[in-house]
């Protein structure tokens, strides 16, 4: 059974990655935050008796399922929104946002030009990731970002290991093509990787 300290360390370690992964999937930061918070709460409530070693797989599964729940709800909501579109409301709360809140917390000592270049590169990579089909993106993220092996990824995605390999291969080819199109070859990415 994991202690509170172990759970805290685990959540601290995964929360940022989980947030970014969810943003790529749902394309809305507020929704992504809600989903990650929900996933953290579910893990703590339902799996308090599990060992900390099981947490990465459990958390990923909960996160993926919470995202799927969101898609289902979104589908129903979209139906109603389409029906009632004439009553469309403005975006509430936009005026209340503090602009300072949106400033990224980065390394301030870094050269602004380098920061700008990296930020632009990341935008291109993120866009490419968002353009991938959902299953390919899921496979790519689990396999390369979460560093799971093929068998773990297959278990997580509920498909065969062969399907995982296919999804990964297609994702890699699509990503490479999209990045190449934007002038981001493997050398550029490798250089940025060294810098970071």
């Amino acid at each position: 059974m994991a202690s509170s300290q172990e759970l805290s360390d685990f959540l601290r370690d995964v929360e940022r990655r989980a947030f970014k992964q969810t943003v790529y999937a749902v394309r809305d930061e507020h929704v992504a935050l809600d989903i990650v918070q929900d996933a953290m709460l579910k893990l703590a409530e339902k799996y308090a008796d599990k060992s900390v070693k099981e947490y990465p797989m459990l958390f990923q599964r909960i996160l993926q399922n919470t995202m799927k729940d969101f898609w289902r709800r979104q589908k129903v909501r979209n139906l109603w929104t389409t029906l009632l579109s004439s009553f469309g409301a403005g975006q509430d709360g936009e005026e209340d946002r503090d602009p300072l809140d949106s400033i990224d917390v980065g390394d301030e000592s870094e050269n602004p030009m380098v920061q700008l270049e990296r930020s632009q590169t990341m935008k291109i990579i993120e866009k490419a990731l968002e353009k991938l089909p959902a299953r390919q993106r899921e496979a790519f993220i689990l396999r390369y970002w979460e560093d799971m092996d093929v068998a773990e990824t297959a278990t997580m995605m509920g498909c065969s290991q062969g399907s995982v390999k296919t999804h990964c291969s297609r994702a890699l080819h699509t990503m490479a093509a999209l990045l190449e199109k934007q002038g981001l070859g493997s050398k550029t990415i490798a250089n940025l990787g060294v810098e970071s």
Partner: protein
Amino acid sequence: MNIDNTDQKDIEQFEVQAKQIAGLLDAHANRLNMHTLKRLEDGRVRALKAHAQRLAGINVNVDGTLGQIAAWAAHHRLILSGLVLATIVSSFVVLRALNTNESSDAFLLGAELPPEAFVDRGFEPSLNRHENI
């Protein structure tokens, strides 16, 4: 054979690139704004509270005994079936009571003796005495 080797090399090269991209994404994920970091921290704190409650065994509303009993209340179909059954049973009892009254009324009206005779407590013993004679 050569084609296979080339494919394998391509895949390896792509995988290396994928790892590099994942590294960049990882580094980028650590650069979140204050608002996002605060909300993630709030979520973590709430999760830790829930975890502590679970460990202390006081979270009876989720999976505890009280929670399980109370959870039956959430079964709408069961409640609805219970209500329908209760309505059927009570209407049956009421109808039966009405039928009993009707048959006793019919008996009193159809009897040769006046209804007052059945109310009089001394009538039955007197009737029995006369039968003996």
